[in-house]
């Protein structure tokens, strides 16, 4: 009987996604599959967290906690939803908690000064001129401020929609709300962003 249940779970996972199948292997004690999952989702989780909390060190710390929680949950894992939905639900939960705790407050206050978090954009000859670098940094700071000014849930919705290319249904599952609530969150968020960033075209 348990074998049949496992087989059924495996089949369900396969229809859901390959990640869920990998997670079931982790559940069975396959550590290498955890490595594959980490490799596959490391960047997207860290980048999402970075854009949420706007601090690279905090984002990496939170990402460590996300993957650690995934690993800890391996024994009780059931592939009832898409793996990335579960993963981003953990990440969003941690990011919102960190924001509420004011963990990165100090860093947000010094948003303009944190040039070390930003990759330098290069010209065709490989070296940006000082003026171009300054313009780029100013524009980037404006974008970061505009995103940081969004209410937390709107911010999470926009980041998942824009950078993770998630569908409304998946964002709704991550944020534990209805699809129409997500549409409303996104509409309000883009309305704010249009007002603040449209001049940058």
């Amino acid at each position, binding site marked *: 009987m348990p074998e049949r249940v496992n087989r059924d779970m495996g089949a369900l996972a396969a229809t859901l996604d390959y990640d869920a199948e990998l997670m079931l292997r982790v559940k069975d004690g396959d550590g290498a599959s955890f490595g594959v999952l980490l490799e596959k989702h490391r*960047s997207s989780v860290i980048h999402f967290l970075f854009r949420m909390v706007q601090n690279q060190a905090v984002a*990496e710390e939170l990402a460590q906690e996300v993957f650690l929680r995934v*690993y800890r949950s391996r024994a009780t894992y059931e592939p009832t939803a898409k793996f990335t939905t579960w993963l981003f639900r953990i990440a969003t939960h941690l990011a919102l908690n960190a924001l509420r705790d004011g963990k990165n407050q100090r860093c947000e206050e010094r948003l303009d000064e944190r040039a070390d978090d930003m990759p330098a954009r290069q010209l065709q000859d490989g070296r940006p001129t000082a003026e171009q670098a300054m313009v780029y940094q100013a524009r980037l700071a404006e974008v*970061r401020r505009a995103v940081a000014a969004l209410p937390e849930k709107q911010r999470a919705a926009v980041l998942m929609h824009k950078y993770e290319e998630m569908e409304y249904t998946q964002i709704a599952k991550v944020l534990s709300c209805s699809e129409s609530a997500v549409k409303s969150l996104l509409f309000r968020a883009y309305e704010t962003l249009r007002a603040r960033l449209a001049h940058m075209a």
Partner: protein
Amino acid sequence: MNCPCETRGSPELLIAYASRGLDSIQNASLEEHLTACAACREFVQNQRAAWQALDLWEPAPISADFDRRLEQRVAQEVSWGQRIWGDLARAFGPVLVHRAVPIAATAVLLVAAGVLLDRPAAPPLTPEHTAAAQMDALRPDQVVQALDEMDALNQFNHSLKADGAESRM
């Protein structure tokens, strides 16, 4: 088509068009509308500008030691778990098997026997005792209320019977 700017819930169509595009049928229909509607055209232009501005925000590179740190934490967690279980098993395993189980079983039996022997024997109840006890427990106002309720029930029964007799006639 209806103007998405004016139709409730439709701006999402314009957002989708300006960000990732629509399927060819929706695309053609919306583009036809955009040639005629200045408000929707402006909305799309601004949405595109905001979308492109967001593209400027490239993520920072991830620390080279991220995986190593995570690996260490996972290993630490695994070894902690194993160590705790190992220590518990080492410390209490033999004691549990050889001493604690018989001691605990004996203790449970002794406590159960003590509880049973310690209970005072209840005196046998006769019907007179029971009735007297019930009478003692009643208050005079409860008796008056019960009699009133019985009267009310009797009157109700009489009225039902009278109604039944009238309807049969």
